[in-house]
């Protein structure tokens, strides 16, 4: 009898959960799932905006072109290089700054507020701002480095094959670091102070405390933050498009740029969708690998 009442209540609870989730599911369906399916579907068709009436199944021509024209793998390599460097540096710097801001230092509250400023700027503004800072003729960075005799003459940061990607990486870290710091700081503040006190009484040194208390407690926060950062950077477009347009000599041509060029410069929406589909697959693969690695660590 009691079991029956319980299962009835459970059913009601489940129905209530479904009911409250329904609006979200509908929004996700229309704003996310349907466009993705539509994009994948479109990738199998000849769909060129500047050629009216030519919408037809093209026998994987979009994919064949992508795999034979030789621009896909360099774009994948640049994307992965960018994501790996940005996420790794962000995590290292974010951790360092979060640890500093977690201490009782003077002006801590002010610093915590100031540090959010780069995150507040829209990405487009950030890109324009740093384009001017890096400008070879009027840029402040060149001016300071030349005045300080670190450089003999101004450098074309965004116009040089070897320097364009590192310049975008610097911009990206500047923009995204605040989020990493705030997330890690929130994680640090949730660690019980007693753990640290016990460790100090036991004679643990700073590095040992960091390794055996801070890191294990922060693992879940790090996992979530890094995953968010990977996804955010994987689809990074405005910084690249505004600062270099994928150049010079394709040195900053990521998958996002490659897809955009096909879809909105060449107006070949089918091919652009095909690049986006490959891009989605790579992102999903990266996610699964990442998730697996972190879960293994969690079991250990």
């Amino acid at each position, binding site marked *: 009898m009691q079991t029956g009442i319980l299962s009835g209540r459970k059913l009601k609870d489940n129905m209530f959960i479904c009911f409250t989730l329904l609006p979200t599911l509908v929004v996700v369906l229309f704003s996310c799932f349907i466009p993705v399916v539509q994009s994948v579907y479109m990738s199998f068709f000849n769909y060129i*905006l*500047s*050629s*009216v*009436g030519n919408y037809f199944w093209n026998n994987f021509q979009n994919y064949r072109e992508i795999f034979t*024209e030789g621009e896909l793998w360099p774009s994948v390599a640049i994307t992965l290089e960018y994501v790996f460097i940005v996420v790794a540096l962000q995590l290292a710097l974010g951790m360092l700054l979060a640890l500093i801001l977690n201490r009782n230092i003077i002006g801590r509250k002010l610093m915590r507020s100031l540090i959010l400023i780069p995150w507040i700027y829209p990405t487009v503004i950030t890109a324009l701002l740093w384009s001017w800072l890096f400008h*070879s*003729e*009027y840029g402040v960075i060149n001016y300071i480095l030349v005045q300080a005799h670190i450089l003999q003459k101004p450098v*074309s940061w*965004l*116009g*040089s*094959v070897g320097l364009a990607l590192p310049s975008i990486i610097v911009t990206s870290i500047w923009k995204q670091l605040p989020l990493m710091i705030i997330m890690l700081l929130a994680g640090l503040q949730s660690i019980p102070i007693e753990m640290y006190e016990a460790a100090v009484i036991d004679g643990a040194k700073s590095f040992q405390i960091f390794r055996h208390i801070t890191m294990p407690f922060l693992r879940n926060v790090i996992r979530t933050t890094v995953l968010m950062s990977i996804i955010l950077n994987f689809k990074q477009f405005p910084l690249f498009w505004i600062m*270099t*347009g*994928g*150049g*010079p*000599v*394709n040195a900053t041509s990521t998958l996002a740029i490659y897809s955009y*060029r096909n879809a*909105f*410069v*060449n*107006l070949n929406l089918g091919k652009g969708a095909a690049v986006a589909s490959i891009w989605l697959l790579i992102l999903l693969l990266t996610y699964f690998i990442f998730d697996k690695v972190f879960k293994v660590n969690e079991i250990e």
Partner: protein
Amino acid sequence: MKRSIFAICLVFCIIFASAGFAAEKKITLRFANWGSTEKATSDTFKKMIADFEAKNPTIKIDSVSFPYGDIKQQVLVMSAAGDVLDVVQAERAMVDSYIGSGYVTDVERYFSKSYLNDFYPNILNDLKSGGKIYGIPWIASPWVLVYNKELFTKAGLNPNTPPQNLTQLMDDAGKLSGLKDKDGNSVYGLGETTGNVPISGSSIYRIMLTFGGGIWNKRGQVAINTKGNVDAFRYLKTLYEKKYNPETAKLKDLRNLMAIGRLGMYFDQTWGMGGIYGINPAIKSQLGMAPIPATSVTSGLSDLNAHVLCIMKDSKHKKEAAKFIEFITSKETLVELYKQSPFFAPRMSIDNLPEFHDSMLKGAKAGVKQIVPLAKQNPNYENAYLELVNAAQRVTLAGETPESVVKNLDTKLKTILK
């Protein structure tokens, strides 16, 4: 009796006339443009539309504004969705995409012969595909050499004799490169745009033409691997190696440098002067303009830079659209536009008027004859232009040889322009 018949007739006439008058519907023409979104031209566009509506009370102009960078996509998307536009302002390279899309109509039948015969033939022919004209050129410009007379004097050059040929151009660039501005910054001798935008590719195409190269051969096939094109990219490599040219500069960067007196010469469209005056109005008197210097194989050649007016195929008011185009290509409107930045009027009767030839533009007048119509229309020109930019950067920044770059470019453009 006669009086009453006359009165009845008069009443009927009045009734019919007023019924006809009431039935005369006001037509709305939708004019897609970017001019009304830009500060420099928005007032002129408003006035132009108001003047037309005042003269044609039965036609209303609905200005559909888009930023310059978005207009092509927006027009194509609107047309694909059945959202009908009547007249579209287009950049020259956009016209190829519109022709390829099939959304624009050929215009010859909507204009009188005398009107069409008034255009420079090489400019009008550039807008032909399959023998049909697909747009009316509104304002035009070849690529021209812009130079700073004051820097010429400082470098010991005659400010009234700009370089006439390639040898003089390189010599003058060398002398100008030795100068410093008042803050001790070095001056660039000669600017060629190689930034990652299609217009830079158009400029590089001009260099290819001037060195006897180009994109198409006489049979209408893509043929890039030619001596002329190798020489064109070698010229860019030389400019880079001698540090005459700022790296990967867009046109706006070159205009900035010219405005602050750090660039001796550069190639631009005539309306680029508006960008220079905007930064430094005082420099106007120091600027000079000249046609493209000759090489050993040509007397200087240019592709066409123009703002073009197209009539859309789905428009239900093509005759009225043509009427509007005739009005805005008239002397009155062009005089107003000319006040914002200089250009060549594509209509000969207007271009020869004194209002269109201030002292600066006069120096580049011969440049109009350097315009070579495109051998073939192709919807992928803008993409091809980006490949030309990429090739220029390979030669300069990546240190590749002009021969290997041209060979590689040949393969790429054969795919893009197939």
